[in-house]
């Protein structure tokens, strides 16, 4: 097997599937697939427009076919919870928490992107996470935290901390953190 791998013929067409490298290489950046961002000019960091039914529905994991290509269950890549804090407050709190954890934050169009710069070797990014706040009613907001690529354990730590600091009720926590069991 090793001999075959060394051969020039093999190397020509073969792309090694290295789980670690692969994650980095095929990091699906949510920013790149967000359509029409420039049009949503009303959405800034301080406000969010009232969610419509289809935006809510579209959040279903069952409608997320990325499961075909991802090894982890969607619950290990995405967390959602509701909160009564205002979007501004939520974003600020999230930003504080993640900065304390050593992450770098980028803000764009009402969304927050969290990136941790990897310390060693050649991998520049170890974790890429996006957070977004949606308004369900004037006093109720939905927060979604999505991992676009990176270390699962690190992501779980981040979610735990966020849940804890933002006071996510147990019932929601249970469903979101099934993977922690």
């Amino acid at each position, binding site marked *: 097997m090793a001999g075959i791998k060394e051969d020039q013929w*093999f190397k020509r067409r073969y*792309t090694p*599937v290295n789980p670690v490298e692969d994650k980095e290489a095929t990091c699906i950046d949510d920013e790149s697939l967000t359509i029409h961002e420039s049009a949503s000019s009303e959405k800034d960091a301080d406000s969010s427009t*009232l*969610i*419509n039914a289809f935006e809510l529905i579209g959040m279903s994991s069952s409608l997320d*076919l990325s499961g075909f*290509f991802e090894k982890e269950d969607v619950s290990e890549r995405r967390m959602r919870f509701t909160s009564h804090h205002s979007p501004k407050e939520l974003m600020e709190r999230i930003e504080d928490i993640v900065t304390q954890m050593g992450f770098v934050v980028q803000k764009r169009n009402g969304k927050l992107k969290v990136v941790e710069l990897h310390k060693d070797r050649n991998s520049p990014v170890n974790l890429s996470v996006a957070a977004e706040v949606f308004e369900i009613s004037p006093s109720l907001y939905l927060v979604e935290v999505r991992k676009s690529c990176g270390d699962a354990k690190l992501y779980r730590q981040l979610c735990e901390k966020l849940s804890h600091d933002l006071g996510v009720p147990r019932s929601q926590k249970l469903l979101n953190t099934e993977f922690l069991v």
Partner: protein
Amino acid sequence: MGCFQSKSKKDYPGHEDPVVLASQTAFSVSEVEALYELYKSISSSVIDDGLINKEELQLALFKNSKRENLFANRIFELFDVKRKGVIDFGDFVRSLNVFHPNASQEDKINFSFTLYDMDDTGFIERQEVKQMVIALLCESGMKLADEIIEMILDKTFLEVDVNHDGKIDKTEWLNFVTKNPSLLKIMTLPYLRDITTTFPSFVFNSEVDEIAT
């Protein structure tokens, strides 16, 4: 070496020729062949019959074959193009084609409309939307008062149901998603652009087969 024609009959028993599928979709022949690797692993996961049944689809998407729900069922129905109760390779490729970043907006809009038209009436009724919202809330462990759900529906229908008949027709849907393109986000899988990287070259596999025989 071999050309595509000579490989297809042996490697795709009972399935459509990748060359034909490639010509009808946004996928290249290599990409269709890579999709076959994915298809094989899904279709053999519960019953090794070369076809994808509902349980196998659930397992592939949710890593859990028991997670049956409204949306999963509908996705299965849509992928089961010929309504045979199973998804064959041709169905699989053609359905995934709609999710390709290069697929037409029109195809994506039509697919999403059919997706949400759960009972296939040609309209997305208010009651259907309510059912779907409740399903989502349930899935996320969130509870919302009925008044709030109704409020969300009111606001949505005010915007989309232009003729105020309590249901959404194709034209209303088309106009609505054109104004709110983020609603079609679920209809694109960027992974499909890198499919030949995600699923290693089939060429290697089939060369090995020939050497073995």
